[in-house]
Structure formats: C-alpha cells, structure tokens
C-alpha cells in the first residue's frame, strides 16, 4: 500500500470534513446537545435527592377513619404527588394526561374493607382511573396503594372504633353459631384477647397505639456501579448512544460523498492514478475511522468535563471499544458507498438502517426495556455491543475483560462490512 497517496487521501477527507460546517455541527454539536438532554432525563434517581413523584389524585367519597388513614398515608409517600379533586375533576385530569392515576375510595369502603379483613365478607372495590400511556406508573401506584390500604385498615381494625365495634358485634354471633365446639372456643378466646387488648389502649382521639400492618422488612438498596461510592451517571450511557448514532450518520454521509465523487468524475481521476484498490478503500477507511474517533472522543470529553462522566473501568478497554466502534462505523460508510446506487437513494436507505440499528442497539433507551426475545435478537446489532461496551467501561466500572467481547464483535462487524464493500464496490468507471 503506497503511503503517500494514502496519507494524501486521508488528509483530503479531513479537510473536506472540516470545511463542511453542516457535517461538523452534525458530528460534534448535535450529539452533545441531544446526549445532554437524554442524560438529564435518564440520569437515575441516585443523582437527585428528590425522586420524580407520580401525579396521583385521591377522591375520598367514604370519609371514614380508614379512608382518611389511606389518604394520610399517601400524602406522606415520597413517591407520590397527591391532589384531592372531586371525581369528575379527577377523571378529566387523567383523561387530559395531567394526572397519571386517580384513586377513588367509594362510599362504604372503610366499613366493607374492615369486615373483609377479619371475615369472608365481600371485598369492596377501590376505583383506579389511569392513563393507559403510563402503564409502568400504574403498577407502581397499585403497589404503593396496597401498602397504605393494608396499613390503614389493619390499624383501624386493631386499634380503632371500627375494630372495637366489630368485635362487640361478632362475639354474640359466634356464641350463637353452630360451628364445632372446639373451633367456637378457639375463636371466642381470640376475639376475647383482642377485646382485652382494646380495653388497655385508648380509643379514637387518644394517642395511636397500633401502627397497623406494615411492611415486615426494609430495603437496603445498593446500585451496582463501579464502586460503592460511585453513583450511576446516565450521561455516560446517553453520550455513548448519541455519539454512536451520529458517527454512524457521519460515516453514512462519507459513503454518500463517495457516490457523489463518482458522479462528479473524481473517481476517474483516482482510478487513473497508479493507486491500488486496497489503498483507495484503506484511505477511506482510515479517514472514516479518524473522524469517528474524533466525534466519539470530543463527545466523551465534553461529558467528562461537564457531566463528570468517568472511565471507571479500563482506559485501555475504553480506547479499544472506541477503535472498534470507529472501525465498524467507517466500514459501514464504505458499505453504503458500495451498495448505494445514487446518493439520494443511499441517504434514504441508510438513514432508516441507522435509526433501526440505534433503536435496537439501546442507544435511545436501555435494551432491558425490550421484551426478552428482542434483547436476544439485538445482539446481532453492532450498536448494542458498542453501547454495552461503553457502559461497561464507564459507569459499570468493569475491567479490560469486559471490553474483550465487544471489541471482538465490533471488529468482526467491521471486517464483514469491509469484505462486502470490497466485493460489491464498482471499480470500473465508464
């Protein structure tokens, strides 16, 4: 491979790249802007003292001790931002998307829930109105409300007026019942014990003696990042994803530029010179790899300076993955030039292909939100390996061993793209 033509071609491509203001903006500024935006959204709760609260409306039509207990519990919940509208207003708020979930406690809920707590009485319905576009929040609100309902009902039944009244109502019923004597005796002893418990604790209005049923455990959460003192930094993921997306666009543009060079007769000049095909493709590959590396590293440098993204894993691994990604993207550009018929058609097809790749590769949203089968399928997408590799080297803090597989796969994709490009490239210039 002749070095002088190769170096000249690389230098020329870099000159052309930096002379195109649009290309520079698209490659450097736009990914930084979008990655900053996505990073601010997906940074995770550990970066914020105050978690994002879910907008929930509670409509208390019952106004019983239990329903008031539910509302009081929900009001202190750090996961919820509570409002207290009427039912019509709550329905309208959910329909318009201003509130994610509205909980309607119907008339008689407390009485029925208390009865159902100790007996096989009919369980009262708790109305939940929800925004179908927020299914994840619905599941979370359902769990949170279960806790508050159980706590309020059990507290009332073990220490409130409703509980006392129910015991007093139930004891004669048990006495009159026709159940087997041994069962009747055991049940009467239990209710009697509860009644004695009530007699030693103040009734409503006094200090609350019972806390009701609470969660029988606490949670000790530990984010598995690079270390116990290292918080998850969502900017690391977003800058990786957006960096890869835009360098793919930049490299696809490099391929389109090659088609334009052909249209403008420039490849006639190149091919008439005593320069080998390996040099011609090798120079394009080299310039594409250099531009890709610059794009990636400028983005990451910005993220490191402004958003404190750190390479918590292996620096060598990070460099290796960068090189693998850059080589894969550059060879993708050559593939575009080889299989594209015209610049216009190539632009359309490659834009679609890139968007699919980055979407499936987890560049926009993490791959774990995909169905299990799709998570497996996305392993055939090079962007997935690139994003996972950068995640491993940055916030996950995995060592060099974690970079080996992504690098190998990315280099494999680069080799495959190059092989197809070389085989399909139109070398003859009529």
């Amino acid at each position, binding site marked *: 491979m002749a070095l002088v033509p190769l170096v000249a071609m690389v230098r020329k491509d870099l*000159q052309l790249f930096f002379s195109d203001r649009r290309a520079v903006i698209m490659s450097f500024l736009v990914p930084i802007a979008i990655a900053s935006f996505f990073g601010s959204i997906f940074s995770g709760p550990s970066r914020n003292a105050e978690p994002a609260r879910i907008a929930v409306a509670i409509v208390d039509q019952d106004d019983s001790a239990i329903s008031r207990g539910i509302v009081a519990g929900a009001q202190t919940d750090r996961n919820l931002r509570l409002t207290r509208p009427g039912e019509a207003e709550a329905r309208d708020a959910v329909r318009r998307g201003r509130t994610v979930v509205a909980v309607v406690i119907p008339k008689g809920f407390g009485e029925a829930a208390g009865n159902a707590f100790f007996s096989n009485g009919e369980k009262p319905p708790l109305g939940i109105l929800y925004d179908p576009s927020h299914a994840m929040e619905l599941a979370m609100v359902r769990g949170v409300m279960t806790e508050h309902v159980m706590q309020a009902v059990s507290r009332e039944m073990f220490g409130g007026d409703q509980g006392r009244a129910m015991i007093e109502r139930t004891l004669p019923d048990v006495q009159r019942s026709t159940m087997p004597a041994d069962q009747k005796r055991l049940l009467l002893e239990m209710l009697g014990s509860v009644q004695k418990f009530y007699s030693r604790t103040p009734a409503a209005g006094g200090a609350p003696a019972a806390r009701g049923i609470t969660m029988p455990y606490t949670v000790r959460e530990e984010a598995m990042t690079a270390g116990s003192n290292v918080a998850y930094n969502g900017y690391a993921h977003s800058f990786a994803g957006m960096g890869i997306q835009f360098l793919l666009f930049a490299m696809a543009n490099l391929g389109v530029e090659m088609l334009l060079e052909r249209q403008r007769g420039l490849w006639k000049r190149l091919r008439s010179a005593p*320069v080998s095909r390996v040099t011609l493709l090798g120079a394009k590959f080299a310039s594409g790899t250099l531009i890709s590396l610059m794009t990636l590293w400028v983005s990451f440098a910005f993220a490191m300076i402004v958003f404190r993204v750190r390479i918590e894993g292996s620096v060598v691994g990070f460099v290796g993955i960068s090189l693998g990604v850059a080589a894969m993207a550059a060879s993708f550009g050559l593939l575009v030039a080889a299989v594209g018929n015209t610049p216009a058609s190539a632009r359309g097809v490659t834009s679609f292909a890139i968007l699919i790749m980055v979407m499936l590769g987890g560049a926009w949203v993490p791959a774990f939100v995909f169905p299990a089968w799709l998570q497996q399928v996305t392993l055939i997408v090079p962007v997935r390996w690139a994003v996972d590799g950068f995640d491993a080297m940055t916030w996950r803090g995995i060592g060099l061993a974690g970079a080996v597989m992504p690098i190998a796969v990315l280099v494999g994709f680069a080799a495959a793209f190059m092989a197809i490009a070389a085989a399909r490239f139109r070398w003859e210039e009529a």
Partner: protein
Amino acid sequence: MLNVNNLRKSFGTLVAVSDVSFSLDGGQILGLLGPNGAGKTTTVSMIAGLLTPDRGEVLIAGHRLAGDTDPAKRRIGLVPQDLALYDELSARDNLRFFGALYTLTGRALDEAIARALTLVGLADRARDAVKTFSGGMKRRLNLAAGLLHDPDILLLDEPTVGVDPQSRNAIFENLETLKAQGKALLYTTHYMEEVERLADRIVIVDHGAVVADDTLAGLQSRVATVGGGAETLESVFLTLTGRSLRD
C-alpha cells in the same frame, strides 16, 4: 507513444466498443470524434485504465498496461469530461492531492503545482476555493490536475464543454504548448472546429468501431472523392457517420 490495438468492451448485451485501433506519437494531437454513444469515452476509459477491455490491448511506449498500480499509468494524464475537482478545497490543495496520488511530495510537488497553475493562468488564484471559480477557470484547473505529474500522454475528454471563447482559446494555447513539449494528446470533442484547429490526425469512431483515421486533409480528400464537394470536417463527419439522430 500510445498504441491501441483491437479494443473491445461490452456492458451486458451492449457492445460499446467492438474494434478500435489507432496509434499516437509524441508531439501529436489526435482528435477522436464520434456521435453520442459511438464509444469515445469508453475507449478513453480503457486507455486510462478505468475499464478493463474484453479484448485487445493498450500499449504505452510498447508496454502493455496491466493492473491498477502499473507504473506505466504515470505516463498517462486524464482530463475527464466532468469537472473532477473538490469545490471546497483551494486550487492548490486540489493539485496537492492529485499530485500525491502519483507520489509527488515536497519541493517536487510544489514545483509541479506552480508549473501547472502558471500554464493554465491560475497562479494568482492558487489559494482560493474552487467553488469561487468561474466555469472556465474550473476547466483550466481540471486540465492542470491532469498534467501535474508531467505525463507523456494526455487524454482529454471534451475538455472545453461549457466554457467561454476566451477560456477555450486559453486551453487551446495550453494544449499547443504541451504538444510543442513533445506530449501526445488524445482529444475527444463534438466541436469540429476545435479538431480542425488542433488535431494532426483525426480518428472517427461510430458504433464502437473506427470508420476513419487520417489527417484533416486526407479525410476531406477521401470524402470528396467518394461523395464530392466535402469541404468542412463537419460535412466529412456527417458523411461518414450519417445524419440520423443518436440520442
């Protein structure tokens, strides 16, 4: 200097060139004429190494052109019909790049660039971006890029398309200078008056084959003998290739 022997090239079922042979010596301009689709550009492309002939051979000073990196390609300079230049780069950077393709570097490259720009009258615009050039200036720079590495043979594929008379005249003077330096120039065009002015010999191709290879006077006399009364090259051309449209 250049021998083209029995070239044939087809694209699928389309035979673009069926049998083309001619020769060209140093210090000579050969006009290659033909209607649209006659096979001129395909012939030039095979000589430049852009297309591999199905049959036949191209000899450069007796050496058969073989392979992409054949050193004999250094003896050929191509001036394509398209303005094969990078608009965003300066004239100097364009020439620096094209010169490097022929491994020109350092002082040799600087001198070659200065020489080429002076020849085509663009030395004072060397640092300007090509996109600021007029059509005529681009044509002249296109010519400069083809002769930067001092080739013995210059292939000019319609080098004056779309230029004003002043630029065209300047290009003619450049070509006559190169001819005087002993270069062999193969010149394809549709403009008969250009060939009448420049060419020492004229090859007319039609349907992929050579239908005439002679001097202007020889062609005129030959056609006058057969059909009578042919005075201009255009008349000769139409007599030999017919008057049917070749769209």
